[in-house]
Protein backbone atom coordinates (compact mmCIF):
# COMPACT_ATOMS: atom_id res chain seq x y z
CA UNK A 1 0.00 0.00 0.00
CA UNK A 2 2.79 2.40 1.01
CA UNK A 3 4.60 1.67 -2.25
CA UNK A 4 1.51 2.40 -4.36
CA UNK A 5 0.87 5.67 -2.52
CA UNK A 6 4.47 6.77 -3.14
CA UNK A 7 4.18 5.80 -6.83
CA UNK A 8 0.99 7.88 -7.09
CA UNK A 9 2.64 10.86 -5.39
CA UNK A 10 5.64 10.73 -7.72
CA UNK A 11 3.50 10.41 -10.86
CA UNK A 12 1.25 13.26 -9.73
CA UNK A 13 4.32 15.34 -8.95
CA UNK A 14 5.90 14.93 -12.40
CA UNK A 15 2.60 15.80 -14.08
CA UNK A 16 2.14 18.96 -11.99
CA UNK A 17 5.82 19.92 -12.29
CA UNK A 18 5.79 19.72 -16.07
CA UNK A 19 2.30 21.05 -16.75
CA UNK A 20 1.45 23.58 -14.04
CA UNK A 21 4.82 24.90 -12.90
CA UNK A 22 5.93 26.40 -16.25
CA UNK A 23 3.09 28.90 -15.73
CA UNK A 24 4.17 29.96 -12.25
CA UNK A 25 7.80 30.53 -13.16
CA UNK A 26 9.39 33.66 -11.73
CA UNK A 27 12.31 34.96 -13.78
CA UNK A 28 12.55 31.56 -15.45
CA UNK A 29 12.82 29.67 -12.16
CA UNK A 30 10.29 27.20 -10.83
CA UNK A 31 10.12 25.37 -7.49
CA UNK A 32 11.57 21.90 -7.15
CA UNK A 33 8.64 20.03 -5.61
CA UNK A 34 10.43 16.67 -5.89
CA UNK A 35 13.13 18.04 -3.57
CA UNK A 36 10.45 18.94 -1.01
CA UNK A 37 8.96 15.44 -1.30
CA UNK A 38 12.34 13.75 -0.86
CA UNK A 39 13.12 15.88 2.23
CA UNK A 40 9.64 15.19 3.64
CA UNK A 41 10.16 11.45 3.27
CA UNK A 42 13.67 11.79 4.77
CA UNK A 43 12.34 13.55 7.89
CA UNK A 44 9.17 11.47 8.28
CA UNK A 45 10.45 8.02 7.27
CA UNK A 46 14.25 8.20 6.93
CA UNK A 47 16.29 5.77 4.86
CA UNK A 48 15.82 3.81 2.70
CA UNK A 49 12.43 5.42 1.88
CA UNK A 50 13.92 8.84 1.12
CA UNK A 51 16.72 7.35 -1.02
CA UNK A 52 14.18 5.19 -2.91
CA UNK A 53 11.83 8.15 -3.42
CA UNK A 54 14.79 10.21 -4.67
CA UNK A 55 15.89 7.43 -7.00
CA UNK A 56 12.38 6.72 -8.36
CA UNK A 57 11.37 10.39 -8.70
CA UNK A 58 14.68 11.24 -10.34
CA UNK A 59 14.41 8.31 -12.74
CA UNK A 60 10.92 9.42 -13.73
CA UNK A 61 12.24 12.89 -14.56
CA UNK A 62 15.16 11.34 -16.46
CA UNK A 63 12.83 9.12 -18.50
CA UNK A 64 10.37 11.84 -19.45
CA UNK A 65 12.60 14.90 -19.84
CA UNK A 66 16.22 14.15 -19.03
CA UNK A 67 18.89 14.36 -21.71
CA UNK A 68 19.97 10.90 -20.50
CA UNK A 69 18.84 8.38 -17.88
CA UNK A 70 20.61 8.64 -14.52
CA UNK A 71 21.46 12.33 -14.07
CA UNK A 72 18.45 13.42 -12.01
CA UNK A 73 18.15 9.98 -10.37
CA UNK A 74 21.71 10.19 -9.03
CA UNK A 75 21.23 13.70 -7.65
CA UNK A 76 17.93 13.01 -5.88
CA UNK A 77 19.00 9.60 -4.57
CA UNK A 78 22.23 10.94 -3.05
CA UNK A 79 20.42 13.94 -1.57
CA UNK A 80 17.62 11.70 -0.25
CA UNK A 81 20.07 9.27 1.32
CA UNK A 82 22.21 12.03 2.90
CA UNK A 83 19.27 13.88 4.45
CA UNK A 84 17.66 10.56 5.44
CA UNK A 85 20.63 9.99 7.77
CA UNK A 86 19.29 12.68 10.14
CA UNK A 87 15.96 10.83 10.58
CA UNK A 88 15.12 10.61 14.29
CA UNK A 89 17.84 13.08 15.22
CA UNK A 90 15.91 16.29 14.43
CA UNK A 91 12.43 17.57 15.26
CA UNK A 92 10.46 16.53 12.21
CA UNK A 93 7.39 18.42 13.50
CA UNK A 94 9.09 21.79 13.08
CA UNK A 95 8.39 23.35 9.70
CA UNK A 96 11.63 25.35 9.88
CA UNK A 97 13.64 22.12 10.07
CA UNK A 98 12.06 20.91 6.85
CA UNK A 99 12.59 24.29 5.15
CA UNK A 100 16.25 24.27 6.18
CA UNK A 101 16.82 20.80 4.74
CA UNK A 102 14.92 21.68 1.54
CA UNK A 103 17.25 24.66 1.04
CA UNK A 104 20.22 22.40 1.74
CA UNK A 105 18.94 19.76 -0.66
CA UNK A 106 18.34 22.18 -3.55
CA UNK A 107 21.82 23.63 -2.96
CA UNK A 108 23.38 20.16 -2.88
CA UNK A 109 21.48 18.96 -5.95
CA UNK A 110 22.18 22.03 -8.05
CA UNK A 111 25.87 21.86 -7.18
CA UNK A 112 25.86 18.21 -8.28
CA UNK A 113 24.22 19.37 -11.53
CA UNK A 114 26.83 22.11 -11.87
CA UNK A 115 29.65 19.61 -11.37
CA UNK A 116 28.12 17.19 -13.89
CA UNK A 117 27.75 19.95 -16.50
CA UNK A 118 31.23 21.27 -15.73
CA UNK A 119 32.68 17.87 -16.58
CA UNK A 120 30.69 17.71 -19.81
CA UNK A 121 32.70 20.73 -20.94
CA UNK A 122 30.05 23.48 -20.75
CA UNK A 123 31.62 26.81 -19.90
CA UNK A 124 29.69 28.15 -16.91
CA UNK A 125 30.29 30.69 -14.17
CA UNK A 126 29.56 29.51 -10.62
CA UNK A 127 28.87 33.12 -9.59
CA UNK A 128 26.16 33.56 -12.23
CA UNK A 129 24.71 30.15 -11.59
CA UNK A 130 24.41 30.80 -7.87
CA UNK A 131 22.73 34.18 -8.09
CA UNK A 132 20.53 33.62 -11.14
CA UNK A 133 19.45 30.00 -10.72
CA UNK A 134 20.41 28.31 -7.45
CA UNK A 135 19.49 31.08 -4.99
CA UNK A 136 16.12 31.95 -6.61
CA UNK A 137 15.28 28.26 -6.85
CA UNK A 138 16.10 27.78 -3.15
CA UNK A 139 13.89 30.72 -2.16
CA UNK A 140 11.02 29.62 -4.39
CA UNK A 141 11.21 25.98 -3.32
CA UNK A 142 11.39 26.89 0.38
CA UNK A 143 8.31 29.09 -0.14
CA UNK A 144 6.20 26.14 -1.36
CA UNK A 145 7.60 23.76 1.27
CA UNK A 146 5.03 24.45 4.08
CA UNK A 147 2.09 23.36 1.90
CA UNK A 148 3.70 20.14 0.68
CA UNK A 149 5.18 19.24 4.07
CA UNK A 150 1.82 19.85 5.78
CA UNK A 151 0.13 17.42 3.38
CA UNK A 152 2.93 14.86 3.84
CA UNK A 153 2.62 15.03 7.64
CA UNK A 154 -1.12 14.43 7.34
CA UNK A 155 -0.41 11.45 5.09
CA UNK A 156 1.99 10.02 7.67
CA UNK A 157 -0.81 9.97 10.25
CA UNK A 158 -2.09 6.87 8.45
CA UNK A 159 -0.72 3.68 9.94
CA UNK A 160 0.20 2.02 6.60
CA UNK A 161 2.65 4.83 5.85
CA UNK A 162 4.61 4.13 9.04
CA UNK A 163 5.55 0.59 8.02
CA UNK A 164 9.36 0.59 7.92
CA UNK A 165 11.31 -0.41 4.83
CA UNK A 166 14.85 -1.77 5.09
CA UNK A 167 17.82 -1.95 2.79
CA UNK A 168 18.30 -5.42 1.32
CA UNK A 169 14.67 -6.57 1.24
Amino acid at each position, binding site marked *: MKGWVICGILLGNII*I*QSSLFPFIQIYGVQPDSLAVLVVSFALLAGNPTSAIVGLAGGLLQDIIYGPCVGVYALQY*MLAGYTIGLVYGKVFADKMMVCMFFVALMVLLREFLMFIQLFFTGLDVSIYNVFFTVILPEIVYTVAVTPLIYYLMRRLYKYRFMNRRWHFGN
Partner: protein
Amino acid sequence: MSLIRFFRNRPLVIIVILSVLLIVAAVFTSQNDGSINAVEGIVGEIISPVQKILYSATSYVYNSISDIKERRELRTNYQNLKERVAYLEKELLRMNELEKQNQRLRRLLDFATEREEFVVTGARVTGKDPGNWFDIFTIDKGENHGIAVNMAVVTEQGLVGRIIEVGSNWSKVQSIIDARSSISGIIERTRDNGVVKGNNLFGFEDGTCSMIYLPLDSEIVEGDKVITSGLGGILPKGIYIGEVKEITRSKRDLYKTVIVEPAVDFRRLEEVLVVKGRTDD
Protein backbone atom coordinates in the same frame (compact mmCIF):
# COMPACT_ATOMS: atom_id res chain seq x y z
CA MET B 1 20.44 -15.16 2.56
CA SER B 2 23.92 -14.11 3.64
CA LEU B 3 24.08 -11.71 0.68
CA ILE B 4 20.79 -10.05 1.78
CA ARG B 5 22.12 -9.77 5.34
CA PHE B 6 25.37 -8.30 3.99
CA PHE B 7 23.50 -5.54 2.10
CA ARG B 8 21.03 -4.97 4.94
CA ASN B 9 23.89 -4.04 7.25
CA ARG B 10 25.67 -1.90 4.67
CA PRO B 11 23.25 0.62 3.12
CA LEU B 12 26.17 2.78 2.00
CA VAL B 13 27.41 -0.10 -0.19
CA ILE B 14 24.02 -0.22 -1.93
CA ILE B 15 24.06 3.55 -2.46
CA VAL B 16 27.59 3.43 -3.92
CA ILE B 17 26.66 0.53 -6.24
CA LEU B 18 23.49 2.33 -7.39
CA SER B 19 25.46 5.55 -7.95
CA VAL B 20 27.97 3.73 -10.14
CA LEU B 21 25.13 2.05 -12.07
CA LEU B 22 23.40 5.41 -12.61
CA ILE B 23 26.62 7.03 -13.83
CA VAL B 24 27.13 4.13 -16.27
CA ALA B 25 23.49 4.44 -17.40
CA ALA B 26 23.91 8.19 -17.91
CA VAL B 27 27.02 7.68 -20.02
CA PHE B 28 25.33 5.00 -22.17
CA THR B 29 22.01 6.76 -22.66
CA SER B 30 23.63 10.10 -23.45
CA GLN B 31 24.70 8.54 -26.74
CA ASN B 32 21.25 7.27 -27.80
CA ASP B 33 20.04 7.28 -31.40
CA GLY B 34 16.94 9.39 -30.83
CA SER B 35 14.46 6.55 -30.42
CA ILE B 36 12.41 6.27 -27.24
CA ASN B 37 12.88 2.95 -25.45
CA ALA B 38 10.10 0.71 -24.11
CA VAL B 39 10.14 2.21 -20.57
CA GLU B 40 10.09 5.79 -21.89
CA GLY B 41 7.26 4.82 -24.24
CA ILE B 42 5.05 3.28 -21.54
CA VAL B 43 5.60 6.10 -19.03
CA GLY B 44 5.01 8.69 -21.75
CA GLU B 45 1.76 7.02 -22.85
CA ILE B 46 0.46 7.07 -19.26
CA ILE B 47 1.45 10.65 -18.46
CA SER B 48 0.90 12.41 -21.79
CA PRO B 49 -2.96 12.60 -21.81
CA VAL B 50 -3.11 13.94 -18.23
CA GLN B 51 -0.34 16.45 -19.00
CA LYS B 52 -2.25 17.58 -22.07
CA ILE B 53 -5.41 18.43 -20.11
CA LEU B 54 -3.54 20.13 -17.25
CA TYR B 55 -1.32 22.09 -19.61
CA SER B 56 -4.31 23.35 -21.62
CA ALA B 57 -6.20 24.39 -18.48
CA THR B 58 -3.25 26.18 -16.86
CA SER B 59 -2.33 27.78 -20.17
CA TYR B 60 -5.87 29.19 -20.47
CA VAL B 61 -5.77 30.65 -16.93
CA TYR B 62 -2.27 32.07 -17.44
CA ASN B 63 -3.20 33.74 -20.73
CA SER B 64 -6.36 35.24 -19.21
CA ILE B 65 -4.41 36.72 -16.30
CA SER B 66 -1.74 38.00 -18.69
CA ASP B 67 -4.39 39.73 -20.81
CA ILE B 68 -5.87 41.54 -17.79
CA LYS B 69 -2.40 42.64 -16.68
CA GLU B 70 -1.54 43.86 -20.16
CA ARG B 71 -4.77 45.87 -20.42
CA ARG B 72 -4.05 47.60 -17.11
CA GLU B 73 -0.58 48.53 -18.29
CA LEU B 74 -1.97 49.83 -21.57
CA ARG B 75 -4.36 52.14 -19.71
CA THR B 76 -1.51 53.54 -17.63
CA ASN B 77 0.54 54.21 -20.72
CA TYR B 78 -2.34 55.70 -22.69
CA GLN B 79 -1.52 59.33 -21.91
CA ASN B 80 2.11 58.91 -22.85
CA LEU B 81 1.19 57.21 -26.06
CA LYS B 82 -1.19 60.01 -26.97
CA GLU B 83 1.66 62.51 -26.83
CA ARG B 84 3.66 60.38 -29.14
CA VAL B 85 0.98 60.22 -31.85
CA ALA B 86 2.31 63.33 -33.58
CA TYR B 87 5.77 61.86 -33.74
CA LEU B 88 4.44 58.55 -34.95
CA GLU B 89 2.55 60.22 -37.79
CA LYS B 90 5.83 61.53 -39.08
CA GLU B 91 7.07 58.01 -39.04
CA LEU B 92 4.12 56.85 -41.10
CA LEU B 93 5.95 56.81 -44.39
CA ARG B 94 8.76 54.80 -42.92
CA MET B 95 6.26 52.47 -41.33
CA ASN B 96 4.57 51.82 -44.66
CA GLU B 97 7.89 50.70 -45.97
CA LEU B 98 8.36 48.50 -42.94
CA GLU B 99 4.90 47.06 -43.45
CA LYS B 100 5.81 45.97 -46.93
CA GLN B 101 8.93 44.39 -45.57
CA ASN B 102 6.86 42.76 -42.87
CA GLN B 103 4.48 41.31 -45.47
CA ARG B 104 7.41 39.82 -47.33
CA LEU B 105 8.66 38.25 -44.13
CA ARG B 106 5.19 37.07 -43.24
CA ARG B 107 5.04 35.15 -46.50
CA LEU B 108 8.30 33.54 -45.46
CA LEU B 109 6.91 32.76 -42.04
CA ASP B 110 3.71 31.24 -43.36
CA PHE B 111 5.72 28.27 -44.36
CA ALA B 112 2.97 25.87 -43.55
CA THR B 113 0.29 27.40 -45.75
CA GLU B 114 2.46 28.16 -48.74
CA ARG B 115 4.36 24.89 -48.87
CA GLU B 116 1.88 22.38 -47.59
CA GLU B 117 3.90 19.44 -48.87
CA PHE B 118 6.40 20.08 -46.09
CA VAL B 119 3.90 20.04 -43.26
CA VAL B 120 3.65 16.69 -41.48
CA THR B 121 1.14 17.54 -38.76
CA GLY B 122 -0.01 20.12 -36.24
CA ALA B 123 0.59 19.30 -32.58
CA ARG B 124 -0.16 20.62 -29.11
CA VAL B 125 2.48 21.21 -26.48
CA THR B 126 1.78 18.88 -23.57
CA GLY B 127 4.61 19.56 -21.12
CA LYS B 128 7.90 21.23 -20.47
CA ASP B 129 11.16 20.11 -18.87
CA PRO B 130 10.53 20.61 -15.13
CA GLY B 131 14.10 21.75 -14.52
CA ASN B 132 15.40 25.26 -14.96
CA TRP B 133 18.36 24.16 -17.01
CA PHE B 134 17.29 22.96 -20.43
CA ASP B 135 14.57 23.76 -22.92
CA ILE B 136 13.01 20.53 -23.97
CA PHE B 137 9.27 20.08 -24.25
CA THR B 138 6.88 17.35 -25.33
CA ILE B 139 4.14 17.40 -27.98
CA ASP B 140 1.12 15.13 -28.37
CA LYS B 141 2.01 13.65 -31.77
CA GLY B 142 4.53 10.94 -32.57
CA GLU B 143 5.50 8.15 -34.91
CA ASN B 144 1.84 7.27 -35.61
CA HIS B 145 1.36 10.74 -37.09
CA GLY B 146 4.37 10.56 -39.37
CA ILE B 147 6.82 12.39 -37.11
CA ALA B 148 10.49 11.40 -37.26
CA VAL B 149 13.68 12.52 -35.54
CA ASN B 150 15.22 15.79 -36.83
CA MET B 151 11.99 17.15 -38.29
CA ALA B 152 11.60 20.89 -37.75
CA VAL B 153 9.04 22.32 -35.36
CA VAL B 154 7.64 25.74 -36.28
CA THR B 155 4.87 28.19 -35.45
CA GLU B 156 3.52 30.99 -37.62
CA GLN B 157 6.17 33.15 -35.93
CA GLY B 158 9.15 31.04 -36.99
CA LEU B 159 11.39 28.13 -36.05
CA VAL B 160 10.83 26.56 -32.63
CA GLY B 161 13.27 23.66 -32.69
CA ARG B 162 13.65 20.12 -33.89
CA ILE B 163 12.38 16.69 -32.91
CA ILE B 164 15.00 14.79 -30.92
CA GLU B 165 13.06 11.72 -29.81
CA VAL B 166 9.87 10.10 -31.07
CA GLY B 167 7.39 7.85 -29.26
CA SER B 168 4.28 6.33 -30.78
CA ASN B 169 1.99 9.20 -29.75
CA TRP B 170 4.36 11.83 -28.33
CA SER B 171 7.71 13.37 -29.15
CA LYS B 172 10.44 15.41 -27.47
CA VAL B 173 11.36 18.75 -29.01
CA GLN B 174 14.65 20.55 -28.40
CA SER B 175 14.09 24.28 -28.77
CA ILE B 176 16.58 26.48 -30.64
CA ILE B 177 17.33 28.43 -27.43
CA ASP B 178 18.59 25.29 -25.66
CA ALA B 179 22.35 25.51 -25.11
CA ARG B 180 22.86 22.16 -26.81
CA SER B 181 20.95 23.16 -29.96
CA SER B 182 23.01 23.95 -33.05
CA ILE B 183 21.50 24.64 -36.48
CA SER B 184 22.71 26.10 -39.75
CA GLY B 185 21.41 29.61 -40.46
CA ILE B 186 21.80 32.41 -42.99
CA ILE B 187 21.43 36.20 -42.80
CA GLU B 188 18.61 36.90 -45.23
CA ARG B 189 19.93 40.26 -46.52
CA THR B 190 23.67 39.57 -46.80
CA ARG B 191 23.41 35.79 -47.45
CA ASP B 192 26.15 35.09 -44.85
CA ASN B 193 26.13 31.56 -43.47
CA GLY B 194 26.65 30.72 -39.83
CA VAL B 195 25.70 28.38 -37.01
CA VAL B 196 22.84 29.34 -34.69
CA LYS B 197 23.40 28.04 -31.15
CA GLY B 198 21.06 28.37 -28.18
CA ASN B 199 22.04 30.62 -25.29
CA ASN B 200 19.78 29.16 -22.59
CA LEU B 201 22.44 27.88 -20.28
CA PHE B 202 22.00 28.35 -16.58
CA GLY B 203 22.92 31.83 -15.49
CA PHE B 204 22.18 33.21 -18.94
CA GLU B 205 18.54 32.31 -19.48
CA ASP B 206 17.70 35.24 -21.72
CA GLY B 207 15.90 33.24 -24.42
CA THR B 208 18.28 34.26 -27.20
CA CYS B 209 20.57 32.45 -29.63
CA SER B 210 24.08 33.20 -30.83
CA MET B 211 24.96 33.03 -34.51
CA ILE B 212 28.64 32.16 -34.83
CA TYR B 213 31.21 31.57 -37.58
CA LEU B 214 30.05 34.59 -39.63
CA PRO B 215 32.66 36.05 -42.00
CA LEU B 216 34.56 39.07 -40.67
CA ASP B 217 33.75 41.12 -43.77
CA SER B 218 30.00 40.54 -43.57
CA GLU B 219 27.96 43.73 -43.39
CA ILE B 220 25.43 42.58 -40.82
CA VAL B 221 23.47 45.24 -38.98
CA GLU B 222 21.15 45.04 -36.02
CA GLY B 223 17.67 44.07 -37.17
CA ASP B 224 18.82 41.77 -39.97
CA LYS B 225 16.65 38.70 -40.37
CA VAL B 226 18.04 35.21 -39.81
CA ILE B 227 16.55 32.19 -41.58
CA THR B 228 17.50 28.51 -41.83
CA SER B 229 19.99 27.76 -44.59
CA GLY B 230 18.90 24.20 -45.31
CA LEU B 231 22.52 23.05 -45.21
CA GLY B 232 22.85 19.50 -43.97
CA GLY B 233 19.39 18.61 -45.25
CA ILE B 234 17.89 18.31 -41.75
CA LEU B 235 15.82 21.48 -41.57
CA PRO B 236 14.03 23.01 -44.57
CA LYS B 237 15.56 26.15 -46.07
CA GLY B 238 13.99 29.53 -45.45
CA ILE B 239 12.32 29.12 -42.04
CA TYR B 240 12.48 32.37 -40.14
CA ILE B 241 14.55 32.12 -36.93
CA GLY B 242 14.68 35.69 -35.64
CA GLU B 243 16.51 38.96 -36.00
CA VAL B 244 19.95 40.21 -35.10
CA LYS B 245 19.85 41.95 -31.74
CA GLU B 246 23.50 42.67 -31.13
CA ILE B 247 26.82 42.22 -32.93
CA THR B 248 29.77 41.13 -30.82
CA ARG B 249 33.32 40.53 -31.93
CA SER B 250 36.58 40.63 -30.05
CA LYS B 251 39.73 41.66 -31.95
CA ARG B 252 41.24 38.21 -31.66
CA ASP B 253 38.27 36.38 -33.16
CA LEU B 254 38.50 35.12 -36.71
CA TYR B 255 34.77 35.43 -37.20
CA LYS B 256 31.84 37.55 -36.18
CA THR B 257 29.24 36.54 -33.62
CA VAL B 258 25.76 38.02 -33.36
CA ILE B 259 23.04 37.63 -30.77
CA VAL B 260 19.77 36.57 -32.38
CA GLU B 261 16.41 37.31 -30.81
CA PRO B 262 14.15 34.39 -31.81
CA ALA B 263 10.81 35.31 -33.38
CA VAL B 264 8.97 32.66 -31.40
CA ASP B 265 7.60 33.48 -27.94
CA PHE B 266 8.91 30.46 -26.07
CA ARG B 267 7.03 31.31 -22.90
CA ARG B 268 3.65 30.94 -24.54
CA LEU B 269 3.94 27.93 -26.80
CA GLU B 270 0.72 26.03 -27.23
CA GLU B 271 0.35 24.81 -30.80
CA VAL B 272 3.13 23.99 -33.23
CA LEU B 273 3.58 22.59 -36.72
CA VAL B 274 5.96 19.74 -37.52
CA VAL B 275 7.60 20.02 -40.94
CA LYS B 276 10.07 17.83 -42.80
CA GLY B 277 13.32 18.76 -44.49
CA ARG B 278 12.62 17.39 -47.94
CA THR B 279 9.43 16.38 -49.73
CA ASP B 280 10.85 13.00 -50.65
CA ASP B 281 11.62 12.06 -47.00
